């Protein structure tokens, strides 16, 4: 197990370096420039050149990459857009994103798994078919479109703003009211974020359950005369949930980066919106740092999933 962990960690490190180099090349070579995106007759080309120099953009690409790494690790990495330390910009937003995505994940898991199990127990019943239909609907409806409809409906119905992370006229609110206000603002975006996840995960659970109940050991358990409930929830379900671990591995990076669109639609001040804006403004330091963070998280997610597999399933225990 120990040597497996070390070997995996080394592989992860190599992968990470590879990812960062490739993304650096793609991002900096893409069309566009962080400086003077507009054409202003009062800004002479000479000044643009000087700015490029100040931002080290005149240097060869490998030097720029080296400088970025160096600045990242010495904490001297500043955003092109507002001259603030990149880590500070990310730090002030990351909790908002985590909160939103944690709630969405909670909704996904607490609804999707019971739904999937329920459908699989009554395969091809009316309720199962309804579930299938709902799941396809949930996967195929564009979430930003649904978001607009729900926002419209909510505002029309209640006349209370849903935008942002809180109402901003909260000075004369009591603590209770502030909490309610925050929950109200959290509700719509997290539900919409969760819809696709619920649809997908409940399908996974359903098909995984259906596969497991056909296994020999389930038949054996039934033949032994165990009650149906015990067979289903103790023997079958535990095995059926194994593949869900993989999905959990993917979920960690999703927690950070999965809400770019929803954050933009709901004006949620998180890092999803930050990365969108940074890409538009060609703010290379911010884009690269966010990409790296998200790569690290994906790799950690995979790594954790690998380890969890070993723990959950004796058949794939690593030597």
């Amino acid at each position: 197990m120990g040597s497996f962990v070390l070997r995996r960690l080394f592989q992860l490190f190599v992968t990470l370096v590879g990812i960062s180099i490739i993304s650096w090349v793609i991002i900096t070579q893409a069309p566009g420039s962080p400086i003077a995106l507009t054409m202003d007759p009062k800004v002479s080309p000479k000044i643009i050149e000087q700015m490029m120099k100040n931002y080290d953009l005149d240097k060869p690409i490998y030097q720029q990459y080296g400088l970025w790494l160096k600045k990242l690790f010495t904490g001297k990495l500043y955003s092109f857009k507002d001259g603030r330390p990149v880590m500070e910009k990310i730090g002030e937003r990351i909790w908002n994103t985590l909160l939103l995505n944690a709630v969405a994940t909670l909704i996904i898991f607490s609804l999707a798994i019971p739904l999937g199990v329920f459908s699989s127990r009554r395969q091809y019943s009316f309720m199962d078919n309804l579930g299938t239909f709902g799941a396809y609907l949930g996967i195929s409806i564009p979430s930003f479109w649904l978001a607009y409809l729900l926002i419209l409906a909510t505002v029309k119905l209640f006349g209370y703003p849903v935008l942002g992370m809180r109402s901003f006229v909260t000075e004369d609110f009591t603590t209770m009211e502030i909490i309610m206000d925050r929950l109200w603002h959290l509700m719509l975006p997290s539900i919409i974020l969760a819809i696709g996840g619920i649809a997908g995960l409940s399908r996974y659970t359903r098909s995984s359950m259906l596969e497991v109940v056909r296994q020999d050991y389930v038949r054996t358990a039934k033949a032994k005369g165990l009650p149906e409930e015990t067979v289903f929830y103790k023997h079958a379900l535990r095995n059926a949930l194994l593949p869900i671990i993989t999905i959990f591995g993917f979920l960690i990076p999703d927690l950070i980066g999965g809400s770019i669109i929803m954050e933009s639609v709901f004006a949620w001040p998180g890092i999803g919106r930050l990365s969108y804006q940074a890409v538009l403004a060609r703010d290379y330091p911010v884009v690269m740092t966010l990409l790296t963070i998200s790569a690290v998280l994906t790799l950690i997610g995979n790594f954790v999933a690998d380890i969890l597999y070993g723990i959950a399933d004796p058949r794939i225990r690593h030597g």
Partner: protein
Amino acid sequence: MGISIAFVGFRPPQKVNQLLISSIGDASYLNPVLSQDSASSDINGFVFNGLIKYDRNLEKFVGVLAESWEVKPGPEPVITFFLRKGVQWHDGKEFTADDVKFTYDKIMDEKTNTVRRSSYELVKKAEVLDPYTFRVIYRQPFSPGLESWTIGIIPRHLLENVDINTATFNRKPVGTGPFRFVEWVSDEKIVVEANPTYFEGKPNLDRIVYRIIPETALNEMEILTRGVDYSGLFPFEYRRMGEVPFLKVYSQPSLGYTYIGYNLKNPLFEDKRVRQALTHAVNRDEIVQYVLYGLGTAATGPFPNHLWYCNPRVKPLPYDPGAARKLLAEAGWMDSNGDGILDRDGKPFRFTLITNSGNDTRRDVGVLVQRQLREIGIDVKFELYEWSVFLKDFVNVKHFDACILGWGLSVDPDAYEIWHSSQIEKGFNFTSYRNPEVDRLWEQGRREYDLEKRKQIYWRIHELMAEDQPYTFLYTPLGLSALQKKFFIVEKDGAGNERLEPIKMEKAGLTYDLTKWMVPRQTVLEQ
């Protein structure tokens, strides 16, 4: 969810005497030397003061931090600013000429990431004569230089020993302006409050909250639920917002215009009769009607048409396909082979019109122009390119036939960088326009300090260029906004009497008298 619904049944009373402004983007630097975006400029306008500012008609200057100033023309003109005494920074320190010099030095420092340096390049020397006198000497007469002293002055004592590009000051600014900075929550809001020690008196409003709302549709909803008092509008929102009982909508020509620029190095466009014909063939009214919902005015030349230097005698070339055909025939363009396309010496009149992608207005204009020119027998191919590609591979290397673009201008009429023939090589004259008389007039205009004389010069330029038609000047869009009706301009006299006046649109913008805005008590009760 049930509890939430129960809760939202009521909306809490809002702080009454405040102004909620919405903006589509967050600010970047709350520092007038570094800022480039409009959100930052808005806030900087509340927090900082320049030495001077434009008057409400955008004609002359009025003093702000400078009580008065004196321009001594000559081969090396001298401008002396006499500063207001007793002005305090928001932290209590006194403002002096050293701060002005510091601001200038920071702009000129190559390490400062500012785009403002060009306007000061003709300054030979800037010096502090005494704490309340600041003097600038120019290398040559340069009247547009005066405008550059409207820039917000930054405090030396807070920025002297730090790197201005990354200073924390840029997030919590200290200025001399009518409003003091309170807080900035990234991507949510920026709050400023009335400065009680402002030298022109404390503003009437208690505070201004600048809300960042990145989505147009949602911004509209916030306006309707009164979460926003004042907001810019898109043309498609203008009419329906005008129907909302508690809103008043305003419009004002913006400082700039959209045009079709012709590459004058291309033999197709060499003849000015051809360019006049092209302008005759483009139906600008139709373009304004369909693309801008009627919310724009036809442009007649290189100036926005509501300001003093725009010559009112120059009328736009009317839409007249007949006249266009006649002019083209004079220039030798006829449909001799009957294929519906004009030709000359066996070559058809065919060119490619380009613009940048991502700008729907320009795309729509292009499609209309393509159809309109086809009607008089000109075959136009219309192509879109990504902005940086568009600039690098086409416009800057002059590798295009015609392009649709727009200029955003400053208030000063000087557009030397766009039109002077010396700017063909490395400047912004990418259509290679060259007219010796116009060249001379642009030079003369930037040397002349007298407003009336300048006006004559620019009116003449306007006439000449309307004749030359180096561009087909299309339209000036209207800047649109909506404001809640509860705000008034309140004049207070010594006896505590208040006189209410409606807020009206000035050439310098709706917010010119912002410090006098107020929500009077009775209008709140009416709501």
